[in-house]
């Protein structure tokens, strides 16, 4: 079987123009304790709402997917965007390339998957859908609005 890692695919994918945060992210507990870090890491199952009062000093939030079957991170991301967070939102861990379109729609704008994506597969996944049925954390217009102008 082909191992994408062997083909030297890029290990991350980023859809932002600003400079990436240079400090490594800290755990949610450490972030809340220290009050200095500007990059924080949220594990699946952690309550993202405790971060809401501090969003103005955060540059990077990493949301971990321990297994691709664990979809809690999708809600985490969208809730952060709904709470007004505009910094970098990175999906890490067991991220499937076939789900990155939905992840982008939930507000993720960077990816650092355990197994690097084939760039062609990522490009295909992101450009495939011309329309969406429902609104999410992005600015895509749902079909029900397109139909009625």
């Amino acid at each position: 079987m082909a191992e994408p890692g062997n083909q030297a695919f890029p290990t991350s994918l980023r859809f932002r123009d600003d400079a990436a945060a240079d400090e490594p992210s800290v755990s949610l507990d450490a972030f809340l304790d220290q009050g200095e870090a500007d990059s924080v890491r949220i594990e699946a199952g952690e309550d993202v709402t405790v971060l809401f009062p501090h969003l103005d000093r955060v540059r990077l939030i990493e949301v971990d997917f321990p297994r691709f079957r664990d979809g809690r991170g999708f809600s985490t991301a969208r809730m952060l965007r709904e709470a007004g967070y505009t910094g970098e939102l990175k999906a890490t861990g067991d991220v499937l390339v076939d789900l990155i379109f939905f992840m982008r729609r939930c507000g993720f704008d960077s990816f650092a998957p355990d197994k690097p994506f084939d760039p062609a597969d990522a490009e295909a996944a992101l450009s495939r859908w011309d329309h969406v049925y429902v609104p999410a954390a992005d600015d895509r217009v749902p079909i029900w609005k397109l139909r009625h102008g």
Partner: protein
Amino acid sequence: MYRYDKYDQAMVDTRVEEFRDQVRRRLEGKLDDDQFKPLRLKNGLYLQLHAYMLRVAIPYGTLNSAQMRALGAIARKYDRGYGHFTTRQNIQYNWIKLAEAPDLFADLAKVEMHAIQTSGESIRNISSDQYAGAAADELIDPRPWCEMLRQMTTFMPEFSYLPRKFKIAVIASAEDRAALRWHDFALRIVQNASGEIGFEVYAGGGMGRTPFIAYRIREFLPTSQLFSYLQAVLRVWNRHARRDNIHKQRMKILVHDLGQEEFTRQVEEAFEHFLSLAEDFPQAEYDRIAAYFAPPPFEQGLSDEIDLSDPAFAAWVDRQVIAHKAPGYAIANISLKPVGGIPGDISADQMDVVADLAERYSFDELRATHAQNLVLPHVRKADLHAVWQALVEAGLADANLDLVSDIIACPGLDYCSLANARSIPVAQKIAERFADPARQADVGELKIKISGCINACGHHHAGNIGILGVDRKGSESYQLLLGGSGDEVTTQAKIAGPGFDEDGIVDAVERAVEQYRTIREPGERFIDTYRRVGMDGFKEAIYG
């Protein structure tokens, strides 16, 4: 019925091409089975005992003749000439080849069909009343709301990987023909004191190994807020469900663990938030969809007389035909439960016959029922005899709706890799035991439901008589349950006692039926008698 516009068609067509690409990557070895499995499951493609199995969605059980013919053509071209209607109003094929699946999906898309989200941890096909649009007792046709839900639940980004599957039902009548409270999320369309249409909302139901009957979590939800409310329910569940044990991840477990009150509180809190985003669909979208479900042009002034001089036809009418809301019309049920047959199975040739009948006699409409039968929803009473004759020729004229031989059965160990025991042979033996039409008629309404494992696809928890197949030291064994129902009362069947082997369970069912006949009071159905006397009234007759 609903027809795709360019957007719906593009969504389905794009999905076909996406899956074609995923199959290619799998066959090229770029995806291993662990990675590919969730992708194929979200397209309804399982790997079963003998081959790949494909479950095609029949949204809320409604289809037209072109779709039925296409299903028959697919059965011939990609399968072995037959299909199997399921307990979620879908159809399954048992012998699909992975390499051919993308072409099959393309054929489905040509008739506005798909298999999106018919499996996997996703929001499944919406189920509804099989008599929607025809029933005399409905408030409005529930299907526009089903279609709204179909579109809003297709590819919801935030809910790309739910903790487990999520099943929705919508009805609009007091009589429940869709087993509403056995769903994760269910809506009954109601009217409030000021005449406004809205939803009574239920949540947390489901069968499987830990059955729960759904609680009512809201008395009245304005229809315009449905999208916000649904997202609130899904978000609460998606965030807080367990993720460590696949058997404890359905929403019913969270509702049970949190308690109805706390779950409802969290949903209401999230609902307020979603309402503040102001992302609900416009009324114009509902109006657009509802227009597709306008009543067909029923003829006026038709006679309600039916010539019942042919006794076989009269028996069929008596059993299979239901009152329609329009004068001169009737709802005709088509049994897929011939004695000795496989419940829900239908050949490609029979699909063509049924498609022709729908086109000629039922305004091009057909329904699939959760009891694995079919319905011609709008037949002129004057045409019933011609319909019946065509059904007789096709071997589809059994008159056993809701009788002892109208058995729901999952595919069981004959087809399913999850099953512990075979279901179909048990259904066949019970039907043969009660084959005499006079005996069936005397026993009256009796819903037997058989599952080949605790996943309960055969709805045994909701059976007046339920049968659960288990593996007992490597051989098949069957537990007997009594007293379940999926109707507006909704009860969970209870285990009667020790299990039986295949012949033993048939005998035990017969003893239960005979006990009912002995102790029933005038007008009582089996379930009524059970509710009156309880398990104690049956136990000794069954176990001696």
